[in-house]
């Protein structure tokens, strides 16, 4: 039976949600054959599936392995479709630099955030792991990054985030800075002058969007004003 267009978009989404890389690849080819706009096949098919995956992750139905395998399926489909797409105007997408702090090689969390932001339509510049402070600053300056995302899992490398934030300012680069990772808390983010903090990959998309719309740090970081007051009191009340 021939698949019609709306069926094929749903099937692409389903392939991603069900972690079926082969199906995603095959359906992407089928979409091209049926004359579906490749951009639509991504946005209303694969990416829509990934949005659902993000939801399932937030609801703790899906975990890290599911997320990674779903993303593999999505990228397998995108690879097929991309060959049939016109080059995109690079000026239309917001640019994000992302990487793991110098001294730290744990990058699973960073990779999850990258997948989610990529899926949300941002142009991602992945610096990898064990990234020097200067490389973050230089890259952000070169590409005029809208956002810089810093990740770490270690207490020994978390203080470097403040260095990057200060160096960006000194260099006159006004990219927003989002931080996250195991030892990072909202109060730490606030203390070092970060623009945003996200506790997981699902939340990162919301926080980045919020920060880019100029929503202030406090309302993004703290769901409850009392929590903020309480944290400030405990940290010593310094504003």
């Amino acid at each position, binding site marked *: 039976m021939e698949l019609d267009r709306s069926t094929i978009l749903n099937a692409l989404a389903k392939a991603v949600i069900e*972690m079926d890389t082969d199906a995603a690849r095959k359906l992407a080819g089928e979409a091209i054959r049926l004359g579906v706009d490749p951009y639509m096949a991504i946005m209303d098919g694969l990416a829509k599936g990934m949005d659902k995956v993000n939801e399932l992750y937030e609801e*703790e139905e*899906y*975990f*890290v*392995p*599911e997320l*990674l*395998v779903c993303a*593999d399926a999505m990228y397998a489909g995108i690879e097929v479709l991309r060959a049939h797409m016109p080059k995109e105007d690079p000026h239309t997408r917001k640019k994000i630099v992302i990487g793991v702090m110098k*001294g*730290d*090689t*744990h990058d*699973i*969390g960073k*990779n999850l955030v990258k997948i989610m932001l990529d899926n949300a339509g941002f142009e991602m510049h992945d610096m990898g792991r064990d990234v020097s402070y200067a490389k973050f600053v230089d890259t952000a300056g070169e590409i005029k990054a809208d956002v810089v995302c810093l990740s770490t*899992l*270690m*207490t*020994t*490398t*978390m203080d470097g985030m403040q260095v990057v934030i200060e160096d960006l300012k000194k260099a006159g680069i006004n990219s927003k800075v989002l931080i996250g*990772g*195991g*030892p*990072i*808390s*909202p*109060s*730490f983010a606030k203390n070092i002058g970060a623009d945003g903090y996200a*506790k*997981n990959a699902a939340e990162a998309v919301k926080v980045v969007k919020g920060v880019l719309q100029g929503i202030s740090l406090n309302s993004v970081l703290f769901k409850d004003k*009392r*929590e903020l007051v*309480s*944290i400030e*009191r*405990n*940290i*010593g009340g310094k504003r």
Partner: protein
Amino acid sequence: MNRIAEMTPKERFGAFLQGKEIDRLLVSPLILNYASRSLDLKVREFCTNGKNMGEANIACFKKYRHDVVYIFSTTSTLAEAMGTRMHFPEDDSPQVETPFIQTKEDMKKLRIVNPDKDGRLPVYLEAAKRCVDAIGDEVFIVPVIGAPFTTAAALRGTDTFIRELYTDPELVHTLMRATTDSVKALIDAYVKAGTCPVTVEPIATGSMISEKHFREFVLPYLKEVYAHIHSYGLPGVLHICGKVKRVIKAMAESGADVLSIDDIDLLDAKELVGDKVCLMGNISPADGMFKGNPAIIREMVKDCVAKAYDNPKGYIVATGCEVPINTPHENMVAFLEAGREFARLPIDTKKLETEVKPHFHRTTSEACVH
């Protein structure tokens, strides 16, 4: 008030395990690489030399008299001994550089570990023996072993390995078989050295995998590990950091007697598994020990004791995960003093209630895999 005289850490731990009367709850911050600071050693000097590792832990115990002396540098030490290549920063815990199992063909190269020869296990064994000789009559020496799932992840590379829970479950089980056998061989060596080994399984955290995967790929092997430890008459201790609420019931089915936990409300933990296992935790390492101050830490300790002192199967005052290497000395002192004060038995519940409990934000460690 009917108080018994102050016990040594070893008497306290021993009495606790036998269910006898103790003077206070155990106070056991997870002092691991932090011990290097007691001899002003860089972490690399500490963890690559058995004499340094042993002497630093001895000096650290003499300084703090904490209730358990752990021997540890990274959760990947067993994987390293089985073939994974590590990177040793000068002053930070070692990290995986090149996982051993690069291709499926490499699976054939897997061997059960030889603790007397492989990797840095001889360093750990020497450190452990030095501690047993010097302070073993006062405190239990407890080497920390990366449990089967965590060791398997470090052998295969974590992101490849956890994908294979879906794409190649057979490989995962084969790898788990090999790591479980090596964990048991290492337990044998540590017991022979007069120590009481414990296990950490942070890659199986609820921040990483589902309960379904935990039950399928982690639990059967952990059961085997604790049965093995029990065969020596020793207690099973399972540490998993990160979010554990979703997996804590399965953790309690592993046969472990003590669960060392991080990101979960102790009240929830008590309700979910308190009738089965002793709980241990969960003062925040980053916001408390590292970035906090003595006043904050005192509140955090009190909060934990208030929540868990009446846990049916007992409670141990501890940090949720490793004490950060650069924790200020005064913060460590504050932790121990608060622990000794609030955990003195019988618990002074009035003292626990006197101040308003603040709400602390807890960081959500994804997994502690250094």
